[in-house]
Every structure is written in structure tokens, then in C-alpha cells.
């Protein structure tokens, strides 16, 4: 086993050890956080989990005809104002 390989193995042990430690701590921290929040806060309307907003492909439905009209209007508005 040469120099590089022993460095690589060391790096893997330290790295994966650390990644797991860190994320395990995070699991517990998150669980505790959620528990504390739900205990000490007044009940509030919860938000159902959604996908990453930025890439979601299923937004609130709107009547397609209206949507089309609005899209055109936006395009028109934009082209007027961008000049």
C-alpha cells in the first residue's frame, strides 16, 4: 500500500466517520427541535409537505383558457415595458 492509498484510506475513515456523526447528530437535533416546537407553540395551521418549489411541475391549477389569456397579457405587458 503506497503513500497515496494510505492517505486515501485515512481520508475515507475520517470523512465517512464525520459525515455520519454529523448527520446522526442532526437527526437527533431535528427530532428534539420538532418536539420542542410542537410542545411550546400554540397550534398553528400546518403546511403540507411539498416538493422543492423551484422545480415543481404541478402548480395550483388555473383554467387553461384564462391562463393563456393572462400569459399573453403578461407577454404584452413585458414587451411594452422592456423596450
Amino acid at each position, binding site marked *: 500500500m503506497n503513500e497515496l492509498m494510505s492517505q486515501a484510506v485515512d481520508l475515507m475513515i475520517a470523512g*465517512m466517520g*464525520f459525515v455520519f456523526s454529523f*448527520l446522526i447528530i442532526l437527526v437527533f*437535533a431535528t427530532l428534539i427541535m420538532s418536539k420542542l416546537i410542537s410542545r411550546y407553540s400554540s397550534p*398553528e395551521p*400546518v403546511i403540507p409537505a411539498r416538493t422543492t418549489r423551484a422545480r415543481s411541475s404541478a402548480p395550483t391549477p388555473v383554467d387553461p383558457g384564462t391562463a393563456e389569456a393572462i400569459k399573453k397579457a403578461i407577454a404584452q405587458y413585458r414587451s411594452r415595458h422592456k423596450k
Partner: protein
Amino acid sequence: MDKLLTLWTGSGLFNLSGGQFFMICVGLLLLFLAIRKGFEPLLLVPIGFGGILANIPEAGLALSAAENAIHFAKPEVLAALAGILDVSYQAGQSVTPEVLDAFKHAYKLGSYDVVQQVNVLAQTLGYTNGMLYNFYSVSIASGVAPLVIFMGVGAMTDFGPLLSNPKTLLLGAAAQFGIFGTVIGAALLDMTGVMDFTIMEAAAIGIIGGADGPTSIYVSSILAPHLLGAIAVAAYSYMALVPMIQPPIMKALTSQKERAIKMSQLRAVSKKEKIVFPLVVLMAVVLFLPDAAPLLGMFCFGNLMRECGVVERLSDTSQNALINIVTIFLGLSVGSKLGADKFLDLQTLGILLLGMAAFCVGTACGVLMAKLLNVFSKEQINPLIGSAGVSAVPMAARVSNKVGLDANPQNFLLMHAMGPNVAGVIGSAVAAGVMIKLLG
């Protein structure tokens, strides 16, 4: 006449080298993949175009003033540079390719102050930094562009699915075996004498397995900037190939019964949990891994802006105008590293091979981790969501969903896979922090 001759001897047709021709074709190929095949176009269109620009002969767009001065090789200029670069060259001496290589080599190895001085001298002598070199300095060498993109990604990320099932963070941890396994792979290639790597290079290559563009660029700009082009291209290409790379591995490691496991509905997550979570992550960084602070700090900042609800205009800008502007310059800057002399190297081949291996190992470890968790826990996890732990948001989660639907048409895994998917982003940022701490 004289002037027309200048134009001809300065033209690309007269100067185009084979390597440049090849790299221009590579640039066109990247554009083709991005535009026709839809491979991560937001990055690969600028990267491919930047790659072509970087290989325009004589234009020197990706070179610093000093590199341009060396390229044009006027004897009196070289004589002036020789002093600073500590190359033995006198004004009268003929300019052979060996001499130029000596200059290039000395520049490449020069320390920060030598590089600064030689560039000031070259600018004094009338040479200028190429456009792409400037873009690279400002956006990547300074570290700012990947961090700003990470902030934008944070502002686009919904941690809801992760919060409703925090256990899935462990899937994101397991998938990071792809990173460190690849480092071992690079060491193997080095040990068997196939190609040479240093530990810094091996680590930078490994980060491809993080399946996260900005993290890869950030780490390799610190550990091995000369490999940045190949590493970024590999990272984005393989992210685009996730729907082809992952399913065979996922199917090989799971039984039909496992793939058909239906997971229970995710619990609803309160607004407050979402606001506090980025701060919890930040505190973990503060306490345990300060070297991950730039990456995870900006990520958590973006996410806090998104969730806190009082700075919507900042959140909007960081998800739109700002990230778009930075993406354009980041892409062109990465392209500047696709110069023929830097890219056409045996190491690039190694990077492409090892990067692919990294994705496969990460996928496999994620799936196996999910199976391991099922051994210890009553509440069963569908192991298909383990593969999403490599990140490649949201592609990998969609792959989990699709493979799940193949096994059981009523089995919608998308939301469940988003948890490990974003956990993978945190996981690779942590791995990046460890690497920078130990090697940077």
C-alpha cells in the same frame, strides 16, 4: 499587404492546433447534449460555449496577461519576465518550444506573489487578461459564484419532506461513500501505475460523487483548480445521466417485494420547524465543522430567507435574477478551464471513469443503507429512496419515484425521496468541509 499578412498569420485557420480543434468539437458536443438531449442545459450551455471560446487560437480569452505575454513570445518581453519567474533566459537567446515550456511551467508553479508580480509586469508591457480569465478570477477563484448559487439553491429547497422523516438524513450520509470510495479508486489507479494523482487531486475527483455542481466546483477550485474543467463537466454530465445510471443498480440491489413497499403518508410540518431547521443545521456547523461554514452557511441563509416569510423580495431575487446572473458567469468560467493544454490529459479520462464510478457507488450505498435501516426499524423504508441520497436534486428523487411506480403503480415515492435527496446536499457539503479541512 503587410497588414493583410498580419491578419492572416493571426487568424485561427493559420494557428489552429489539433488539440484546440478537438476541444472545440467537445464544446459543440456539450452544446448538443444540452440543447437536444436536455443535459443540465442551464450549466452545460454556458460551459460548452465557454469551452469553445477558450480554444479560439490566438485570442487567449482564458489566459492571464502573463500567459498571453509568454504565448506571443517576444524576446524582450520574455527577458523581462525571466527575472521574476526565475527562468534562465537572455534577451538574445532564440525562443525554442523548450524555452516557452520552461516559462509556462515556472508560471504554473509560481507562488501567489510571483504570479501577481509577473502579471503586473505583463500588463505594463501591454498585455491584458483574457475575458474568460477575468470572469474566472472574479467568480470562481474568489469562491463567490458557487457560494451564491448555493444560497439560491437553499432558497429553492423545501426541507418539509426531510423534517417529517429526519431518519432519511442517514441515507444522504451513506451515499457519500461515493465520494470517498472514488478517492480510494483514484489511489488504486495511482498505485497500479495507470495514472498519477496527488491526494488533493484524488479528493477533488471524489467530490463528483457528491452529485452537486456548486459543491464540486467550490472544492476543486480550492484543491485542484487545474482539474476544475473536467470535474465540473463530469459532475453535470453524470447528473444528467442519473436516469440511466441509477435504475439498473437500484434493481440489482432490491427485490421486487422491497421495491413495492408503500411508505406511510408524511406528517405535516409546521412553518416554525421550517424556519428553525436551517438554524439548527447552522449551529451544528458552528459546533462541529467550521470548514463547511461557507457552503452550508450560504445554503442555510438562502433557506432561512425562503422560509422566514419576511424577506420575500430577497428570497425571490436570490432564486431568480441573482442565481441566473451568477450561473452565466460561472458557466463561462468553468468553460475557460476546457483549454486544450489543460483538458487533453490522461487525467481527464481518469476523471470521467472515476466520476461514473462515484455515482454508482453512491447510489448503491444509499440503497443498502435503506435496507440496513429496515433491519433495525419497524417502520419500513422503501429502499428505492436510498439512491436519492446522492443529491442530483430533483432528478434522483424522480428516478426513485419512477422505479417505484414500475414495481407498484400505486406507490408514489417522490415526496419520500425528496428527504434523502436534500439530505444528500447537506451530506456532500459536510464531506467537502472535511476534505478542505484536512487537505486545503
